[in-house]
């Protein structure tokens, strides 16, 4: 599951990725004609809308791609950098940039690109941008109030507008297509030429078809999470699922033995977990399973992962979800924690529990009944074991 940094690709290798990404970025911008200021400012005087076409196409492609990757469970959006929203600095900063754009004729990315192929004005623009940053840095105490005002956090546009993500994506795509058509007409008027605004070449149709297939598949194929969650609602399906089961005695033995292989994954609500925290346990929620974080715990091959919940049926459901997600290395605790509490933690409190057991089991449980509460008590003030993955820090 993406993003691949920092687990699959280390932070050092990430710099090489940055270099390669940059090479493609520079080459695409240059090939598109962003290395000449005449093409860039054409956008604002109506004679060349290349910037709008490239920019909107790229934005729509990336947007649809991100939605599709998230939809099919290939990307954890919670780890992706979402530019934070600070309302006033976004508006005022943007307006200043717009002014800089019409006066200077470049933006930072395109100026670097143009400077690389020898445009002297672009080199001067780059030098100017250093001065701009320096002014901001030196005057920072003056601007800090504005810079940090109206912090909305990492909000996303469809939430701000109160619509669903797919509706927004559809609207944006429609606006983009309309804009492509409209700007071609404007271009014709300004340049005094007649070029048909819509040219349906096989390539365009091909591209549009790919977009449609992705959009439709996302619309009709339910999200992976929904499918799995629906399946586990089916009791028979869950019951018939072949799961490895650990008896409470073995579980107790491994706890006492402080078995290094054992990992307890506790799915009870956090409050319950705070009250009774088993040794070697971490607390997760079902939602966590669909995120990237449990990867680290559940995909270690030599470990024994025991899913723990109050009753066995809940454990089964969770273990099925884990299996469906590809984490096959999970076991469940027989009878759930309920059974474990009754037979081990409270062993001996009622005599019925002991009836029908052989002497060895009784002896073991009596011993476990003493030791395990001590282990639990020792584990209590260890602080939270749960690790939260951090969002990638990005942006300019």
């Amino acid at each position, binding site marked *: 599951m993406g993003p691949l940094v920092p687990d699959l690709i280390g932070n050092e290798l990430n710099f090489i990725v940055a270099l390669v990404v*940059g090479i493609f970025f520079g080459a695409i911008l240059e090939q598109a004609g962003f290395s000449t200021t005449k093409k860039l400012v054409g956008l604002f005087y109506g004679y060349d809308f290349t910037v709008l*076409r*490239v920019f909107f196409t790229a*934005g729509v492609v990336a947007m649809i791609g991100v939605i599709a990757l998230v939809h099919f469970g290939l990307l954890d959006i919670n780890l992706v950098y979402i530019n934070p*929203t600070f309302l006033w600095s976004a508006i005022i900063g943007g307006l200043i940039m717009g002014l800089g754009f019409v006066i200077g004729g470049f933006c*930072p990315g395109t100026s670097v690109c143009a400077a690389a192929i020898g445009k002297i004005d672009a080199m001067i623009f780059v030098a*100017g941008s250093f001065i701009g940053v320096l002014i901001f840095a030196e005057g920072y105490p003056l601007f800090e109030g504005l810079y940090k005002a109206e912090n909305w956090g990492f909000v996303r546009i469809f939430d701000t507008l109160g619509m669903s993500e797919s509706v927004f994506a559809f609207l944006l795509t429609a606006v983009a297509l309309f804009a492509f058509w409209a700007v071609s007409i404007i271009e014709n008027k300004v340049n005094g030429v007649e070029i048909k605004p819509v040219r349906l070449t096989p390539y365009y149709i091909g591209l549009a078809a790919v977009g449609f297939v992705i959009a439709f598949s996302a619309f009709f194929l339910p999200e992976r999470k929904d499918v799995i969650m629906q399946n586990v609602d089916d009791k028979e399906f869950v019951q018939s699922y072949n799961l490895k089961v650990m008896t409470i005695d073995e579980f107790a033995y491994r706890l006492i033995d402080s078995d290094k292989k054992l990992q307890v994954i506790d799915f009870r609500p956090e409050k319950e977990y705070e009250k009774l925290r088993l040794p070697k346990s971490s607390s997760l929620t079902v939602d966590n399973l669909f995120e990237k974080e449990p990867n680290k715990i559940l995909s270690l091959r030599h470990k024994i992962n025991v899913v723990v919940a109050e009753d066995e049926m809940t454990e089964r459901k969770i273990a099925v979800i884990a299996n469906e997600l590809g984490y096959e290395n999970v076991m469940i605790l027989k009878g759930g924690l309920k059974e474990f509490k009754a037979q081990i933690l409270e062993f001996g409190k009622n005599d019925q529990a002991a009836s029908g057991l052989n002497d060895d089991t009784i002896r073991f449980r009596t011993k476990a009944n003493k030791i395990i509460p001590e282990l639990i008590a020792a584990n209590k003030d260890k602080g939270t074991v749960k690790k939260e993955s951090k969002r990638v820090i990005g942006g300019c």
Partner: protein
Amino acid sequence: MEAKKYMNPYYAGFFLGLLLLATIYITGRGLGASGAVKSATVAAVETVAPSHAENQKFYKEYLNEHAGSPLKNWLVFEVIGVVIGAFLSGLISHRLTFKMEYGPHSTSRIRIVTALIGGALFGFGAQLGRGCTSGAALSGMGVLSTGGIITMFAIFGGAYAFAYFFRKLWI
């Protein structure tokens, strides 16, 4: 040799979109440009006036947030890549020439001044707006960030609003 024609804008956009998507999938972050200028500025100030960098709040906050040398930064590497990529592209398409471009009613002297002022405004605005056309507008649109999209509208809206007053520079 004559310079080759530019790429069809929709194809270029499509490839750029795929690149942005791949970048998000691999690294969890989008593209950028102005951040590299910021890193370089911080590095320069740190080298030239270390005590100044220690006392000014902006540099302090930056150095707190970014461990290690300011130049050991994702965007710095990316922008080095942009220089290489653009150069290679210019080489292949025969567009490598030292020249300056400006409108028919402008002069090279005016162009030097406007490029410098425009760059300074953009550099300043990108700091205030937390990213430029690449980092805030394009990448923000890819992940549907509210702030990124507002910045995008502000940049292009602002440029249109001011375009009339600076038309003599370009047309």
